[in-house]
């Protein structure tokens, strides 16, 4: 019984295969990051003297338990909400010459609606039985209204879109500390033109 040497497997190409795979996955994988709508909750303090907001500076969005929208006492479809919010924020109803006058607003300047974007407050009132889907959809539309107006202003002032630049900043596409800070300042400048003033009322308990 002669012992025959078993033929060796040529493993020379194993490394090549492994590297090929490795490179393929390195190139194709994207680590998916969670995205969402960020919010800052109000701190839990008793407000002694709640600021008075004029009726005309308040945009009331009501969502009932069957996910229907009541905007400024009128029934509305979700798809019209964004336009209605833009019209309200951009109204600039304060008369020209007054300190509240909004020079960059392009709205109808209706004295019955908001004075300027800084004064305008959107108030969302939900029912406890409103679905979360509707809640997010409404929030999304309202943020979209703000973003549309901010985009418009940043294009007018700097020639780029607010949302695109802030996304670039988020994703680290802006190189250099100085450039980042300069951009941050400009972004804040635009945020000041249209400050996000969303208020959420305590939900009604009619559903329970």
């Amino acid at each position, binding site marked *: 019984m002669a012992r025959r040497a078993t033929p060796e497997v040529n*493993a020379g190409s194993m490394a090549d295969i492994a590297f090929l795979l490795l490179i393929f996955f390195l190139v194709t994988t994207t680590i998916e990051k*969670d995205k*969402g709508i960020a919010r800052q909750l109000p701190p839990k303090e008793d407000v002694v003297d709640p600021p008075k907001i004029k009726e005309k500076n308040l945009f009331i969005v009501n969502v009932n338990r069957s996910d229907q929208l009541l905007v400024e006492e009128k029934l509305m479809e979700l798809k019209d909400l964004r336009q209605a919010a833009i019209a309200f924020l951009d109204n600039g109803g304060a008369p020209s010459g007054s300190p509240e006058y909004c020079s960059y607003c392009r709205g109808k300047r209706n004295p019955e609606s908001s004075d300027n974007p800084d004064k305008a407050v959107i108030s969302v009132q939900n029912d406890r039985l409103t679905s*979360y889907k509707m*809640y*997010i959809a409404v929030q*999304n539309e309202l*943020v979209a209204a703000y973003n549309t107006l901010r985009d418009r202003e940043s294009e007018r002032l700097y020639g780029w879109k607010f949302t695109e630049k802030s996304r670039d900043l988020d994703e680290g596409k802006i190189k250099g500390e100085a450039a980042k800070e300069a951009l941050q300042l400009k972004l804040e400048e635009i945020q000041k033109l249209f400050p996000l003033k969303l208020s959420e009322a305590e939900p009604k308990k009619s559903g329970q």
Partner: protein
Amino acid sequence: MSKFTKKKSSELPAISTASLPDIVFMLLFFFMVVTVLRNDNLLVQNKLPKADQVEKLKKDRSVYIYAGKPSSRYTDKFGTEAKIQIGDKYTDISNIKFALTEAREKLLPELQDKVMVALKVDEKTNTGMVTDIKQELRDLNMLKIIYITTPGNEINE
């Protein structure tokens, strides 16, 4: 003529292992494609609502809260009422504070003050539950929250 007589086949022929790497790599390939990395084992249904005006979440400083109806395999045990999940277990609304403090301690110490709470809530949940969670968060002074969504828009559906 002994030259042509066949050798006695008492020896087993060696099994070729040349194709083994291919098989292994095929398996590797399969698993790489199929696997989804997930930190928490989901105990609730989690179909997120759609939104397109979104920001990115910084993962190193976030604590996750899940809410929704219990997954189908747990409905026998826990019913169909919406529940809150933090970490790997269900949490009662009164227990949120404790569970969140615990979750926060797992983060890097220098990031614990900048903690962001990521709410992964099923789209069929009632807003009331989310409001309750937010009240608890205000008590805890964890004020930065983010509603995690999937890309898309409700209106275009």
